[in-house]
């Protein structure tokens, strides 16, 4: 469904007074997301993972320099046409929501953006919120009045209103305690099982592993490996790259071991 082919993203940066340089952020990234699967892109902060989401959605800042190809269902990806309709984003924080508008209303707006006619928006919004366990009380609140978990679920509702085939979740577990994080990821899993493609961007390997189909590991902007989730077991011998193995063994649940050499 989604194909990323040799994507590289850099930023123009002023150097001192006169020169500018291009700082590479993502290098030569290639991956695919199929319908019905959840692909997790794992990387440390600063590894460039959010840039991938921004590139797909056409939301890169003005000073970004992009090369490589993005394809959706075989054709070159046109962010403006697909964004909000075929491709939806579940953003990282409530900063993406309007702080002055009640949540329910914003979900209705999302319904409008997804192409629903005016009459259908309110019932669709109510239904979407209910699907994620949010009732009328939550709909009446402003974004900052929602807890982290509730806000995340509201944004999930907004993203799934339309018939988006591809969902991109940017750090969906950030700031959530384990129960809420699991709940959000489970919702995403259900959406994948229903036939959508789900791209999860995160730094929390342990949380996404139980639910993802495949995992792509990013390090310093370069793709280390894309492995099936099942390969992350035991001592990680089934993983191809030493970095992925080291990452697996570094988890507190597994070995809590730093890389060789300290």
């Amino acid at each position: 469904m989604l194909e990323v082919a040799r994507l590289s993203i850099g930023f123009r940066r002023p150097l001192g007074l006169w020169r500018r340089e291009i700082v590479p952020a993502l290098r030569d990234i290639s991956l695919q997301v199929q319908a019905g699967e959840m692909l997790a892109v794992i990387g440390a902060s600063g590894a460039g993972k959010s840039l991938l989401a921004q590139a797909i959605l056409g939301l890169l800042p003005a000073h970004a320099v992009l090369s490589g190809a993005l394809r959706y269902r075989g054709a070159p990806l046109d962010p403006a046409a697909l964004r909000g309709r075929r491709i939806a984003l579940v953003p990282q924080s409530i900063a993406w929501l309007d702080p002055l508008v009640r949540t329910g209303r914003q979900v209705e707006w999302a319904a409008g953006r997804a192409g629903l006619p005016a009459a259908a928006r309110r019932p669709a919004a109510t239904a979407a919120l209910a699907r994620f366990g949010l009732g009328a009380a939550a709909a009446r609140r402003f974004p900052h009045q929602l807890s982290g978990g509730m806000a995340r679920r509201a944004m999930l509702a907004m993203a799934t209103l339309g018939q988006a085939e591809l969902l991109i979740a940017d750090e969906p577990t950030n700031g959530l305690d384990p129960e809420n994080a699991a709940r959000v990821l489970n919702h995403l899993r259900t959406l994948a099982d229903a036939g959508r493609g789900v791209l999860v961007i995160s730094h929390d390997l342990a949380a996404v592993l139980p639910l993802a189909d495949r995992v792509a590991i990013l390090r310093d902007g370069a793709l280390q490996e894309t492995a099936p989730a099942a390969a992350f077991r035991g001592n990680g011998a089934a993983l191809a790259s030493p970095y992925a193995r080291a990452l697996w063994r570094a988890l507190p649940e597994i070995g809590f071991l730093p890389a060789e050499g300290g």
Partner: protein
Amino acid sequence: MNARAKIKARVNARGRLLLTGLTAALLLGGALLAGHGMDAALLRPRFGLAALPPGPGYPFGTDALGRDLLARSLRGLETSLLVGLLAATASTLIALLLAGLAMLGRAADAIVGLAVETCIGLPHLVLMILVAFALGGGVGAVVAAVALTHWPVLTRILRAEFQAVLTADYVIHARRFGHGPWFILRRHLLPHALPQLAVGFVLMLPHAILHEAALTFVGFGIAPARPSIGGLLAEALGSLSAGWWWLGVLPGALLLAAVLCLDGIASGLRAWLSPRVAEA
């Protein structure tokens, strides 16, 4: 590629702003030096050369008394800039003092806040005229009038800036590291305040100059014998019906150019002092 595109290609946004600032500063400085260097004879009345329109030898023309308008305008600009500088300095110092006092406690902050909000609402042209009139006119009176009416905006900005810094997490950390109020003032507060101060000061200059011009125009400012832009504009008013357009338009345009230069200098200053600048 023309010069502009060449510069854009090789110099980043920060550099461009600095260039603008430098160019503006050079222009302004050059104009002032030129005015100073001009022959004093050009400023004395020469009745044979009265009311000449701009032409060879007289780039700005001459006024009703035969005085070279360019020389007068440049001298006038000098005076206006001097007045502006003094007034802006005084105003900035008042703002700094008040913002500092506001940090001493909640009561102090409330009093300063009230003072700022009240004074901001007052019509400052009327106030300036009153002050200038009360002090008998002249350069000193104009400086006082402008200084006493322009501190509120900068005070408000500085107060907010100081507040933001003093309540910030990193200041609490600094205290827990054992640093006292003096360290926090010097190393944390000042680096935030100085850029605001500098830019605020430079932006106040055009304000001050324009107000000085207005005061002199209205008759409460600088004495007519000493050239100032406002004075020149006042004189020009009487001659408009005679069709001597250059008497008003050219000094006015010079003032505008000076104000734009100051704005450019402020932008350059801001770019230089701020570590986080727009990438380009």
